[in-house]
């Protein structure tokens, strides 16, 4: 049931315990207790809205920054990752397989803002040997949600 509840909440965090209980054919009390447990045990780390920021002119720009890191003996990539994630400009940090090591999603008010942040902060961290910054030009889909409006339904009436 935990997994079923998580799947539903991942899809829509606004589902109430009562709705989830109905959908799963489960007891409401049990569902609401399970959700509390999932929150307490850090399975659920937060609830956030999916926002189409592109609708607000100049709300923010974001970039994917690839970091090459020289890992430290005993500490691996953790030390750098912790430094990177401490910045409020950083939205997400992932350790990657492949050509580079850390994938960092950075947001800022403007291109210059992000560029400055990468140059002054990320690039200067000890053991970061190289950076490559890719600016996001348009968001099509965010957290499973389609952000571009669907095509008009031009099918006409069906009488059945």
């Amino acid at each position, binding site marked *: 049931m935990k997994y079923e509840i998580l799947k539903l909440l991942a899809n*829509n965090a606004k*589902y109430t315990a009562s*709705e989830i209980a*109905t*959908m*799963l*054919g489960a007891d409401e009390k049990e569902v609401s207790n399970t959700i509390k447990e999932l929150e307490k045990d850090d399975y659920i780390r937060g609830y956030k809205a999916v926002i189409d920021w592109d609708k607000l002119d100049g709300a923010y720009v974001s970039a994917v920054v690839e970091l090459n890191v020289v890992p430290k003996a005993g500490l691996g990539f953790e030390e750098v990752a912790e430094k990177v994630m401490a910045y409020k400009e950083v939205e997400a940090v992932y350790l990657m397989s492949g050509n580079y090591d850390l994938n960092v999603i950075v947001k800022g008010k403007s291109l210059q803002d992000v560029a400055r942040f990468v140059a002054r902060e990320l690039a200067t961290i000890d053991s970061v040997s190289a950076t490559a910054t890719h600016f996001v030009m348009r968001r099509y889909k965010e957290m499973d949600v389609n952000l571009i409006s669907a095509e008009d339904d031009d099918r006409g*009436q*069906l*009488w*059945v």
Partner: protein
Amino acid sequence: MIDYGKILNKTVTEIKPSGIRKFFDIAATMDDVISLSVGEPDFQTPWAIRKAGIESLQKGKTKYTSNWGLVKLREEISNYMERKLNLKYCPDEEVLVTVGGSEAIDACIRAVVADGDEVIIPQPSYVCYEPMTRLAGGVPVIINVKAENNFKVTAKELEATITDKTKLLILPYPCNPTGAIMEKQDLEAIYEVIKDKNILILSDEIYSELTFGGKAHISPACIDGMKERTVIVNGFSKAFSMTGWRMGWACGPKEIVSQITKIHQYAIMCAPTTSQYAAIEALKNCDEDVQYMMKQYDMRRRIMVKGFNDIGLKCNEPKGAFYAFPSIKSTGMTSEEFCEKLLYAKNVAVVPGTAFGDSGEGFIRASYCYSVEHINEAIKRIGEFLKEI
């Protein structure tokens, strides 16, 4: 000047337009209508199926197929029938690929029914059986199934309806609009009534994948002695979310299917080739997609049934298809009145039960082929409407 009245076939001009049509017409003129009226899956056709269609086009497979349908598809249909119902149909003689389940129903009725033959139709049920029977020259004989019997046809009702002229019994289960299903013992009771009579069953099983509560669909043909007197109609529209592909099939005794095929051959030639290639993929590799959609429908079904009961419209649990059929008798309104007023007052479109036969009076049909949010909003508005009337 030409007199169209004298040109047109009276049987056709006398067919009433579908009762659902009126509400669609009104709803189409309004803004911000939230609809629970459409009996069509809101999922995209699974990508693998669409891809199979595209690939067949890329390879230039755009010509006619066999009248019966592609051999490979008939084999897959035969496998599917065995996998799902443990019934064996020979792909060469007992399986016909049709343009949706609708064509299979029409052709089967036309193959069996001639002037004056009686066709027994349980109602409330899907709207096509009665007009198709009339077009074939037959006489529809209606059984008004009852809510207290969970909208099943009972042996007693059937017995009272059969005459020497009865040729065909339509069994539309899982049922649109009631959500009723027939279980093994119900079908066995039907068998007892017809076993010594020369009556064929047309079993419309288009919603066979959509049964809830752990009970898998059972076909009348699964009952001992019934396979030889049953034509099963099914299709891809509902289970695989393939409404626009227009793909269905008929399975039955070769003596009947070969005659249905004659009608199909002259009226249609063959089902659309692209759709047939896509359908092969659907039957071969898409069980998981079907399961996923099924699970979504089940959750929406629970939300809708609880929603209706919570606002005071008594709604029994639908066991199949994707409709709830709540009673609106507590409002004192007729079904049509209720639906029209609801549409104008709250911009919510549902279908009056009477669109599916006179015995649908006092009920409305609400489809749950919509997101949970959409269903919740519609039910909230219906709840407000109930308080204001």
